[in-house]
């Protein structure tokens, strides 16, 4: 297999230039504003800055051209070779055997030119940075590269058939996924930060105007605050929906042979490949807003090779809980089980409730210690408020107890637990890297133990944990999930 060296699509020049400019802008925007502000927006400074920007753009363009000219790739001698660098010449060689996957991403600029960014990931590579990235290739070049680097396994006829689509996210599901994503908190804090920024700039809304509008709709200050919080909440909810739409629009899961393909994204189209044999565990996540409607999302933990950490990716963002098994049966049949879970022993309930109530009690104790220092009336109120928190905390502990469970069927470990979302994790025995049985003194007294198994995944290993299962159950689970050696033979 051999070929001559190829250049990237000319759009790579522009993409490179934009990247350079973006870097410069982020470096100079704050000093630039400072200079502008201190000079009082004089014509000379503005002209100077404009001239600087023009010069920078021209330089970035030139640099983009030079680096486009310097970047070539070829597939020859059983290896993928990438050469790049204007001043310092670099060359990277990746043996074709080491190529794990070829993923494509299409950003907005790439979309304009109908090109894609191609990422070549290898067995030894890190999870975050691809081992070789080609920022702009057109479809034809991508296909021929895929063929050359190729997983040579798929036969031509299969290639023509293409991967079979297992499931597509409909627009309705997309919107529901956004509305129930539970990322309102994140969006909320984002808005809070931004509004603070606006406050400081101070000229987006005149204070007087805001006050008058508020007074008209909500005369009392309490109502005004409520209204403000409500508006904030609504805005962050919409933001959360928008975030989901951007990331997951047109989510399509398909499969061809031993590979799963994911396509998603509104502005930036992403395509990812997950080799089935690299999937370590599957997680069914029933978010707190989704569980009441019988909805769930599906994640996979997939490992890198060797020591390289893997990734935890969304396999499908939203689907009815009852169709999870069917989808798994088609996508990753190894993981398609829905066993009845063993509940925790009744004596574990007390520990779950205590565990979530304890922080509240500690807080109450701290308040009562501090009480003599504060105004009596206020202290009493705070004290009562804290004590009232005990009930929701106890309820939370009870819910966690109810959600917890485990099973071992068909050589699979199934573990369910709740933090906020109820998560069911499924991992084959052969994928477990280690098992722990942990007991603290209180657990010892109640004949309970925590069982934890680790699988290879992003961020130092995914965990499957059951807290407070019966001591004997924990031990026999650790035992039964052990390796089984092939006996006999040299």
């Amino acid at each position: 297999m051999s070929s001559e060296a190829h250049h990237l699509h000319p759009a790579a020049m522009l993409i490179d230039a934009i990247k350079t400019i973006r870097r410069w802008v982020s470096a100079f925007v704050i000093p630039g504003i400072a200079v502008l502000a201190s000079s009082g927006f004089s014509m000379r400074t503005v002209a100077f800055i404009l001239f600087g920007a023009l010069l920078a753009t021209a330089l970035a363009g030139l640099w983009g051209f030079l680096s486009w000219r310097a970047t070539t790739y070829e597939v020859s001698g059983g290896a993928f070779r990438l050469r790049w660098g204007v001043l310092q010449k670099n060359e990277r060689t990746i043996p074709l055997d080491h190529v794990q996957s070829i993923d494509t991403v299409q950003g907005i600029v790439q979309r304009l030119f109908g090109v894609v960014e191609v990422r070549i990931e290898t067995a030894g590579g890190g999870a975050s940075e691809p081992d070789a990235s080609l920022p702009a290739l057109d479809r034809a070049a991508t296909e021929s590269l895929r063929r050359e680097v190729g997983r040579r396994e798929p036969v031509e006829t299969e290639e023509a058939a293409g991967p079979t689509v297992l499931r597509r996210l409909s627009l309705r599901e997309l919107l529901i996924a956004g509305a129930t994503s539970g990322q309102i908190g994140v969006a909320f804090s984002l808005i809070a930060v931004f509004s603070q920024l606006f406050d400081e700039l101070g000229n987006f809304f005149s204070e007087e105007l805001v006050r008058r509008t508020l007074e008209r709709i909500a005369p009392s200050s309490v109502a005004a605050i409520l209204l403000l919080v409500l508006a904030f909440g609504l805005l962050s909810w919409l933001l959360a929906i928008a975030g989901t739409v951007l990331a997951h629009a047109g989510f399509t899961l398909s499969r061809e042979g031993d590979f799963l393909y994911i396509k998603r994204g509104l502005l930036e189209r992403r395509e990812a490949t997950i080799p089935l044999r690299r999937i370590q565990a599957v997680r069914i996540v029933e978010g707190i807003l989704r569980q009441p409607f019988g909805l769930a999302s599906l994640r996979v933990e997939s490992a890198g090779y060797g020591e390289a950490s893997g990734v935890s990716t969304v396999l499908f963002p939203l689907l009815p809980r009852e169709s999870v098994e069917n989808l798994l049966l088609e996508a990753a049949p190894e993981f398609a089980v829905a066993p009845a879970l063993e509940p925790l022993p009744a004596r574990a309930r007390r520990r779950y409730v205590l565990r979530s109530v304890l922080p509240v009690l500690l807080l109450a104790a701290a308040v009562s210690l501090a009480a003599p220092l504060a105004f009596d009336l206020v202290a009493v109120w705070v004290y009562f408020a804290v004590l009232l928190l005990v009930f929701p905390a106890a309820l939370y502990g009870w819910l966690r107890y109810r959600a917890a469970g485990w099973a071992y069927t068909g050589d699979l470990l199934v573990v369910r637990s709740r933090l906020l979302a109820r998560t069911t994790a499924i991992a084959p025995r052969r994928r477990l890297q280690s098992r722990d049985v942990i007991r603290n003194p209180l657990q010892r007294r109640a004949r309970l133990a925590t069982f934890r198994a680790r699988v290879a995944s992003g961020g130092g290993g995914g965990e499957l944990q059951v807290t407070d299962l019966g001591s004997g159950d924990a031990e026999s689970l650790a035992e039964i999930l052990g390796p089984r050696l092939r006996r006999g033979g040299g």
Partner: protein
Amino acid sequence: MRAEPAERLDPRAKTLWRITGALGALPLLAVGASVSWSLLRVVGVPSLLGILPLLAALALSAALAGVVPDLRWRRWRYEIREDEVDLQRGILWVSRTLVPLARIQHVDTQSGPLQRRFGLATVIFYTAAGANQIPELSAPVAAEVRDRIAELTREQDEL
């Protein structure tokens, strides 16, 4: 569950841990002393109350250098079985860890300057989900354990 793992760490580990415990306690003592000093001199609380932080720091240091190494050593056990490495450790939170030999990717021994002084070494073995270690074995034992794990790992042929 099967019986406790059979092997213990080298007894010299206790002395080593006493030294590292004492070294670790120094900043603790410094903080306790300065808090006490400022309470007594700057805030001017009653001397009995002001001395409390220092006493607490002293007690903690004594525990770190005195009792903790003993308890820790007594709990720490390990065993290299034919198919798994079996570890037990922890003073209050006692954990038992089983790592199948078939999952181990490579094994190291390490010894820091203080460990070398005592002729001790740590065996570290890596799986795809992170590292585990057996600390403070005497250097020849550590080398033996490392080689044994490496050899057994090669032989594993799992169903």
